């Protein structure tokens, strides 16, 4: 777990590759939420991917090269905020394992200590206060496995939703069960993954919510893609984007 020290003047922002290509609005929303609290945000433009796809697929060498590239780009002693539990867990908990016995180990460990998941950072470091400007609505929440089990930040994400007065959060029955994404798992074991996401959608639909929120775009891509395929009209959205819309009355 992180030490929750005082509010910094400046932070780094790691946008993640999925947000970059598929959900840039979520990335911008996260960045705006930090800036709204008077914190300067630096986005090193050469950043790409945390390396997790290769790391989980049996290609640790390639993962290391890509990881080291990111580590070099975020070299100042500043917190690094990541709008994804999964990429944050990779950078915080798995980088030190990946670089065990490597000449860069100390540097990597120093980098990993500065990683924060977005909700965690907004709640515990910035103590953000939200004022809901939106119409009454019902939402449900999907916990990503990494955010729940590796980062331990689910209560932070939910506390943000609870701050929104007109938003009712209806929890899933099996909130802590994987949605079946798992990166390359979803294409290497399509049928098992498909069965898992189908059950997840059943759970989501039963809440009667109009929106499924999550803090991880991997899960969102999986769940939203499957909902669209099944003609389920619920909307999947990243928590940061939802909050940004609510507090700006969009």
């Amino acid at each position, binding site marked *: 777990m992180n030490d929750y020290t005082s509010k910094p003047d400046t932070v780094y*922002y790691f*946008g993640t590759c999925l*947000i*970059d*290509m*598929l*959900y*840039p*609005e979520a*990335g*911008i929303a996260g*960045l705006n939420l930090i800036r709204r609290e008077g914190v300067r*945000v*630096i*986005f*090193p*433009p050469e950043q*790409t*991917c945390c*390396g997790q*796809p*290769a*790391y*989980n*697929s*049996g*290609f*640790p060498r*390639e993962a290391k*090269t*890509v990881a080291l*590239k990111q580590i070099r780009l975020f070299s100042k002693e500043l917190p690094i905020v990541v709008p994804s539990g999964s990429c944050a867990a990779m950078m915080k908990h798995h980088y030190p394992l990946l670089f065990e016995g490597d000449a860069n180990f100390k540097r990597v460990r120093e980098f990993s200590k500065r990683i924060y998941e977005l909700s965690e950072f907004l709640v515990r470091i910035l103590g953000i206060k939200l004022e809901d400007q939106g119409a009454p609505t019902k939402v449900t929440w999907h916990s990503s*496995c990494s955010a729940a*089990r590796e980062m331990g930040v689910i209560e932070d994400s939910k506390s943000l939703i609870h701050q929104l007065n007109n938003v009712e959060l209806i929890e899933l029955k099996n909130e*802590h*069960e*994987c949605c*079946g994404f*798992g*990166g390359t*798992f*979803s*294409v*290497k*074991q*399509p*049928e*098992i*993954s*498909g*069965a*898992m*996401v*189908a*059950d997840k959608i059943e759970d989501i639909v039963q809440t009667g919510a109009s929106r499924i929120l999550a803090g991880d775009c991997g899960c969102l*891509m*999986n769940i939203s*893609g*499957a909902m669209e*395929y099944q003609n389920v009209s619920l909307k999947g959205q990243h928590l940061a984007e939802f909050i940004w819309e609510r507090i700006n009355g969009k």
Partner: protein
Amino acid sequence: MANKAELDFTRNTSQALKDKQLRKNFKFAMGNFILKRQQIFADQKETERLRELGNAIKKRALSRLPQLLEELEEKCTRNGIRVHWAETTMEANQQVLKIMNAHSATRLVKGKSMVSEEMGLNEFLESRGIEAAETDLGEFIIQLNDEKPSHIIVPAIHKNKEQIAQIFHEKLPDTPYTEDVEELNAIARKTLRQKFFEAQVGLSGVNFAVAETGTLCLIENEGNGRMSTTVPPVHIAVMGLEKVVEKLTDVPPLLRLLTGSATGQLITTYVNMITSPRKDDEKDGPREVHLIILDNGRSKILTDPQLRQTLQCIRCGTCLNHCPVYTRIGGHAYGFVYPGPIGKILNPQVEGLKKAGVLTAASSLCEACAEVCPVKIPIPMLLRRLRNESYSTDSLGLVKDSGYKKNLAETLAWKGWELINTHPHLHAIGQKLTGALGSKVPAWGPLKNWTRYRSAPRFAKKSLHQLIAEQGVEDE
């Protein structure tokens, strides 16, 4: 871990997923197990402390495994238990047969033992004219139906009451169809009592073997373990060599972890601690006790400091209960004696990656197993390690068939991925291309599998990089 045909995991999962009754049975049963475990381990801090302790006990035992095994042999021998060593499952089977033959025995009763499943003991004995009768209720049911266990502690969990009623009705002579649980139990009890009475030899597994005292601990709920180890004049215990612990005081925390994790019980109905055959002044118990200690690849696993954590396993089955993959496909689909998360790391190491490596891909690395493992085996990390081994021969060939999956297409794909993600200009070009494609991504390669259950991902017209460049966010 006898596995006749080449594992066709895709076909197995496909069939399992189509079986609605099977999925319902597993979902219901696993849900119950999860709930029971939660209730017994409600105090999270205490549970964590206990798991740390369990981890430390097993790590300590593994770090001195050769010495502890020698000590176990010495103490058992002194207590009158005869110890036999088996490097392979075939050797272990032969040893059982030799003991049976020495007593001209043709009937064996069995308490539940996963190692005996690993040995394929029943088939081995039956082909030599010896009856091996399962006496654990679940094992009894599936033996009647000529099936294999689908779970390591509840072997017939894939069957519901109605299916069991049908099996009893069909396979046991003069048995009317009944769905009454008490009646079903009574039918099994009556059939099994006769088996216990007739058997010349009883066989059991071992949950913990205590080196300090030469004690074999056997944990069970039905009393069939006690019957198998006390009624027949000869008792044979079979264990994997990782089951040894150092001291008697190591047992209570492990026992607590085992029963809490497995069935959500504080303690089981029966805890048997076997330290010798019947003594002259004793009225019951077997005249002879044998202990067969099986290696079957375990000592090789021990040589790798990371993979050796696999051997910490106390076979509670809770990783199966909590696994979203196991819950959906059931135990048989895995094609090996040990299913679920523990099977995914154990089978590839024992059987080789060529035969069982496909199992390592059957995980979303969701960490549900690691979260509940009573001895804290980092199963997802070991899965990653075995995935690495599948593509690389770097680790001195410690894992059988390492590098078996190495192929040009995947190597190039990941090299390309590395190149794009370390060269900003290539990355920018890639983004423009995907942005221009939008959702019109050709459905080939991995995307073909993606779109079997989902719409294709829709790439944003402008990437986060582009939006940020336009908005003028500081870049250093």
